[in-house]
């Protein structure tokens, strides 16, 4: 392309230039996400698992459970911040490392829970799909997922694999806060797996729907 043609392209881009609404900093967007998504997720979790309200209150008294909830919340916040940084070019390239420590802590606690469960039931753990968990997973995970996907799509998805991974982790973790509080079964690894699958499916479906709508609009 010659310089003249490049000049034409620049003129075409600059003519009738519409003002744009600037994307707010990732920390502000993260606060907005948590402010709306967490209470709604907890409320829906409490509604769907209303028989376990007392269980949730008891779990909040358990110091080990509190540590786990803090690790889950820290994973959600750090992964959410990193995902939002990912879609704003020029932000730190190393933000993706933030969720590593909280996520490993969370995984270690899951591992410890699974080990305890294994010792208690003596190898009777079933890895078949637990459909009974699906309503709880959807009720706690849907709103954090929908909101963060909307926020991510407002940015510039330049590194799609990393963005999808961080977004999926953030949404799964925020949904897992309510799930861990209100859901009765204690097979946390299975529940976490369901949470990840549900969030990832939703992200893929929303991406396909967006591509379809873009084509329709064109």
């Amino acid at each position, binding site marked *: 392309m010659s310089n003249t043609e490049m000049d034409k392209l620049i003129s075409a881009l600059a003519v009738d230039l519409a003002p744009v609404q600037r994307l707010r900093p990732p920390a502000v967007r993260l606060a907005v996400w948590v402010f709306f998504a967490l209470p709604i997720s907890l409320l829906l979790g409490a509604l769907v698992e209303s028989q376990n309200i007392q269980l949730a209150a008891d779990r909040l008294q358990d110091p080990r459970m509190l540590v786990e909830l803090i690790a889950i919340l820290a994973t959600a916040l750090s992964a959410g911040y990193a995902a939002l940084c990912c879609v704003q070019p*020029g932000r730190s390239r190393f933000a993706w490392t933030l969720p590593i420590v909280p996520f490993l802590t969370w995984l270690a606690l899951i591992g410890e829970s699974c080990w305890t469960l294994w010792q208690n039931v003596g190898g009777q753990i079933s890895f078949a799909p637990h459909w009974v968990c699906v309503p709880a997973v959807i009720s706690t995970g849907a709103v954090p997922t929908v909101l963060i996907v909307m926020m991510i799509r407002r940015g510039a998805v330049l590194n799609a694999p990393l963005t999808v991974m961080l977004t999926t982790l953030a949404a799964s973790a925020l949904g897992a806060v309510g799930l861990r509080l209100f859901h009765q079964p204690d097979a946390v690894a299975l529940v976490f797996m369901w949470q990840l699958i549900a969030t990832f499916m939703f992200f893929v479906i929303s991406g396909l729907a967006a591509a379809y709508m873009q084509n329709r609009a064109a």
Partner: protein
Amino acid sequence: MTAEDKEQWAGLMAQAQDGDGDAYARLLTAVLPKVRQIVRHRISDVQFAEDVVQEVLLSVHANRHTYDPSLPFAPWLYTIATRRVADQLRKIYRNRSREILVDEYPETFTGEGTNDYEEGALAYATSDTLKKALAQLPKGQRTAVELLKLRDMSLKEAAIESSMSVPALKVAMHRGLKALQKLIDT
């Protein structure tokens, strides 16, 4: 590129975000050498590099709302440019892995009409048939086929010429070719 340049770019971008087209044109013209430098550092083919520079400018345009004026402009531009270069190189490598170079096109049928490679895929139809079929297409599809296939324009050039978006052109092209195929077959 001096520190003063960088500061000026940040100011021009902030003005562009508020809808100032002149500031935007000045900014794109000013950053063009830097974008070319980033792209040509990774792509040696001059023609291909220019196409990628164009892609970078379109990405800058599409994502201009993501720039935060309180931060330096150069890292924002650099991130977009390097990611677009990586995307284009990945596309090239993917396409090359699927392509087989041949000295001569294999003959599919012995009839002359089926082996007229000069005119491309649309040569299977006589020009009269093609003209009639083109005339029956909806305006958007006809424009897309004429610009992209008959005048051999790139998607970006066709988008500027037709005032249609690149995705719209792609969709219109796809539908137009399908409709043409049907019209020519009947």
